[in-house]
């Protein structure tokens, strides 16, 4: 299989997946009853009248995790190509295995320092 045949199959699968979801929704629309009333369409809040809008301001602590995630997720992108070649390196290749391993470990250590800093700052502890 060529490159284009492989990723062409993938592209067709994406389209078929979206169509499938549309077809399921349409089939359900043809088969289900629809008798909406204002009471049914209120926001569910355990049976009592809902207070304020659902999109109100809340204190979320998750943005720190989003930053930490970005840090390590970018690292993962660099790790994938490194992982494939690191086992094939030896004394005859342009880059020695020791160099490849040490370079990547230094990179990871720099990122871990960021995690340690976040820990020290107390963002991983809630009180």
């Amino acid at each position, binding site marked *: 299989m060529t490159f284009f045949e492989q990723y062409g199959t993938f592209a067709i699968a994406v389209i078929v997946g979206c169509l499938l979801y549309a077809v399921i*929704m349409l089939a359900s629309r043809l088969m289900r009853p629809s008798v909406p009333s204002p009471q049914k369409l209120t926001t569910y809040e355990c049976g009592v009248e809902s207070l304020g809008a659902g999109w109100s301001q809340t204190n979320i602590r998750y943005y720190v995790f989003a930053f930490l995630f970005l840090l390590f997720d970018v690292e993962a992108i660099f790790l994938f190509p490194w*992982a494939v070649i690191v086992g094939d390196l030896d004394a005859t290749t342009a880059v020695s295995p020791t160099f490849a391993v040490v370079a990547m470990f230094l990179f990871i250590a720099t990122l871990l320092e960021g995690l340690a800093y976040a820990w020290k700052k107390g963002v991983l502890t809630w009180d």
Partner: protein
Amino acid sequence: MMASLTHATTTVAQTVSLFDGFDGFVLPVILKLVFVLAAFFVLPLVGGYLEHKVMGRMQHRRGPVEAGPFGSLQLVADGIKFIQKEDLIPSAADRWVFAIAPGVALVPAMLVFLVIPFGPGVFALDFELGLFYALAAISVSVLGVLMGGWASANKFSLIGGLRAGAQLVAYELPLIIAAITVAVQAGTLSLVGIVESQATFQLFGTGINVWFVFPQIVGFAIFFVAAMAELSRPPFDMPIGDSELVFGYMTEYTGIKYAMYMLTEYAGMISMSALMVVLYLGGWQLLPGVPLPGCEAGGGLFDCSPTGIALGVAITIAKIMALVFLMVWARVAYPRLREDQLQRVCWLVLVPLSLANLAVVTIAKVVF
């Protein structure tokens, strides 16, 4: 088949998908899509039935018994019920985002099945970047969850969606790093190539052929825990947290859209288990170093007779279901973690541990 750029030591004759045995481009593509959709709709139902029955037995119940023999058609009956249910979109909700969110979660869950090898030649595609592709497709589903939680305009949904977002991105890291560790050991990212390299992998030159689960038992444990957290299954079900958040991001969903979220979860359970089987448990091999009966010609892995292919598929599915059983067992055995405990376990235990595991395996790989 495309030769892997770096894995030049391949000696096995045939690693091509069975579906490429037909001429042209259109017929193989149709057959592949039929295969992927069949696996996507049937295997999650089998896994779901197993969960119903196992949970029932573990809680001194019988589980479903009425629909079909031994209640085996219970989930089919549920599906028929869901598709006929009235579909309510709250008047406060963001209608369009609310409507497409389950699809955004569902379609990537289906796309993962494109690369999973279920047996010798029984796979749709063998990307060179197969492992990368599978992890990328899995991580798209979080968008559907966040969209659903946000568009519902419900406080429970919003909190559930944000929890899901934080949990899914956090646990993706140990998952990815554990998978990269396997890629280091195998020297390839192709899922078929990883199965193949386990057939020839020998423990530090001793001549003992083992699967990657033995040198990487730590990686396997990390992957298993992170996979359960990625699927938001108990004991990691804080995004749903039915005793605190009603039903999290799914609170406002009814009928078929709710069913689509559930199908996503069960399909995720199957694809995560299948990834573990491929990465750590030797794929469709019966025992380490033992060629599959009917496949002797291709080194015990490829060029199989129909019996060998059927046996390989049966072995893979048996391994997948064994892992599903373990996940259900964990669900019954452990209580839910608290939200901040969840994040601490990930950032202070799993991420450093998976990096240490990567370091040890890399050094072992380079030295031996």
